[in-house]
């Protein structure tokens, strides 16, 4: 049973079709990278996985639970699916420690002490132990994104979704975030990562999905994708981002 399974997912904004019959799956422990031109539907696709965006057709199963089923307890499902956003989205009015513990307390019902301890351990893991008492606005972008990853991990997720986690960062901060993600991948975390960082893809991805105009046009093992992408669009895209 795959951790994430999408079957013929289609979604429309009014008459505009954002997603067209998208199918793919992510096995447990697998890392897949989703890439494609801007506006091709990558963010929409990944937000459908934890039900942040509704979709009109098809089916998505996460750990065998149907996301589109109205009977599904979405908050409960989302609590187990970590998500990292392009713009970090830490809670600005809370300290870093509170950012890391609030959902553990309110959603998982952990005690404050337990949650704080777990949060601080993860903060240490992303190398930011000294920042615990600060607020997000006092951290650099790279630091905020590492906190955001730690925040997602604090819920002991069964899989992690990343939506362009480094594209809002200054170039010199990209690697500090990618390093954390690489480590996570190597530990066996199931990950679905929207990114144009092909170095990351080469290093840890198992498969690469290429999207164009709401369709998944390539879904290959990494070696096959970087060896010979079949579609012309994917080839153009690759040569553009690899040589810019």
């Amino acid at each position, binding site marked *: 049973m795959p951790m994430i399974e999408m079957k013929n997912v289609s979604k429309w904004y009014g008459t505009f079709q954002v997603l067209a019959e998208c199918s793919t799956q992510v096995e447990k422990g697998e890392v897949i990278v989703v890439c494609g031109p801007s506006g091709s539907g990558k963010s929409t696709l990944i937000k459908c996985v934890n039900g*942040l965006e509704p979709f009109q057709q098809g089916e998505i199963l996460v750990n065998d639970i149907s996301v589109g089923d109205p009977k599904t307890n979405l908050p409960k499902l*989302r609590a187990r699916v970590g*998500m990292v*956003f392009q713009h970090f*989205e830490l809670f600005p009015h809370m300290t870093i420690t509170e950012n890391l513990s609030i959902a553990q307390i*309110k959603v998982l019902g952990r005690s404050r002490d337990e949650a704080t301890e777990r949060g601080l351990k993860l903060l240490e893991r992303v190398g930011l132990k000294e920042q615990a008492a600060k607020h997000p*606005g006092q951290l650099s972008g790279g630091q905020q994104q590492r906190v955001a990853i730690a925040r997602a991990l604090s*819920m002991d997720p069964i899989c992690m979704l990343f939506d362009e986690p480094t594209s809002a960062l200054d170039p010199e901060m990209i690697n500090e975030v990618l390093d954390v993600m690489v480590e996570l991948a190597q530990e066996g975390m199931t990950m679905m990562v929207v990114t144009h960082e092909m170095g990351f893809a080469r290093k840890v991805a198992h498969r690469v999905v290429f999207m164009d105009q709401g369709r998944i046009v390539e879904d290959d093992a990494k070696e096959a994708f970087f060896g010979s992408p079949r579609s012309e669009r994917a080839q153009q895209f690759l040569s553009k981002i690899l040589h810019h």
Partner: protein
Amino acid sequence: MSTWDWQVFCKDTIDGKIVPSCFGSGGDITYLDWLLSAWGWTLSVSALALLVALLLGSLMGILRTTPHRGLVLLGNAWTELFRNIPLLVQIFLWYHVVPALIPPLRSVPSFILVVLGLGLFTSARISEQVRAGIQSLAGGQRMAGLAMGFTLPQTYRHVLLPMAYRIIIPPLTSESMNIIKNSSVAFAVSISELTLFALQAQEETSRGIEVYLAVTGLYFVSAFAINRAMLFVENRVRVPGMIGGGGH
């Protein structure tokens, strides 16, 4: 009319004799007593109306930002209704029309009706501010909250509202100051607040200048105190690392 006579406030309201202590005794009251009691009524009407306005305005503002079409509609309708009728007309509606339509309301004191009228009028304006504050956070914070497994109410409680309220402290301050000023409409339904006091006391004493100056001063002090208190709150809840405590 040439010199000011502040002793007018020490006069007994019945016989017009000056009371040495300026405060009446044994059931008699001076104009000073009356002035202070009128100030009390102004503050009471304002404070209670503000409470009503904050509660209902927040609720309606929140409803307007939910993903549920029916709730959005309710919040919008509420806001338009109470925003588009002049305040004085609303007060008269509460005083004359509503009790006629809903008989049990006939026994409700006019003080309560004024609090409701002023509170609902102001709730429409606060609803606008709360909605704008929440929407200024864009969709990212809401998604981040939901993605952590918070329910929608939890997302509002822990993620959206704490920042939204910080952002709207300045407009909420002017709304709170407005409510003090707007509470003067209560004179229209015979609440013995500052404006009614001014009208009656100047008639009885022919000392309009002193009376109006005193009343003006008390309105000013009240509004100014609110302003200072809100500034204090704004500083207390300022988020480190954020300029102006605003969104991003």
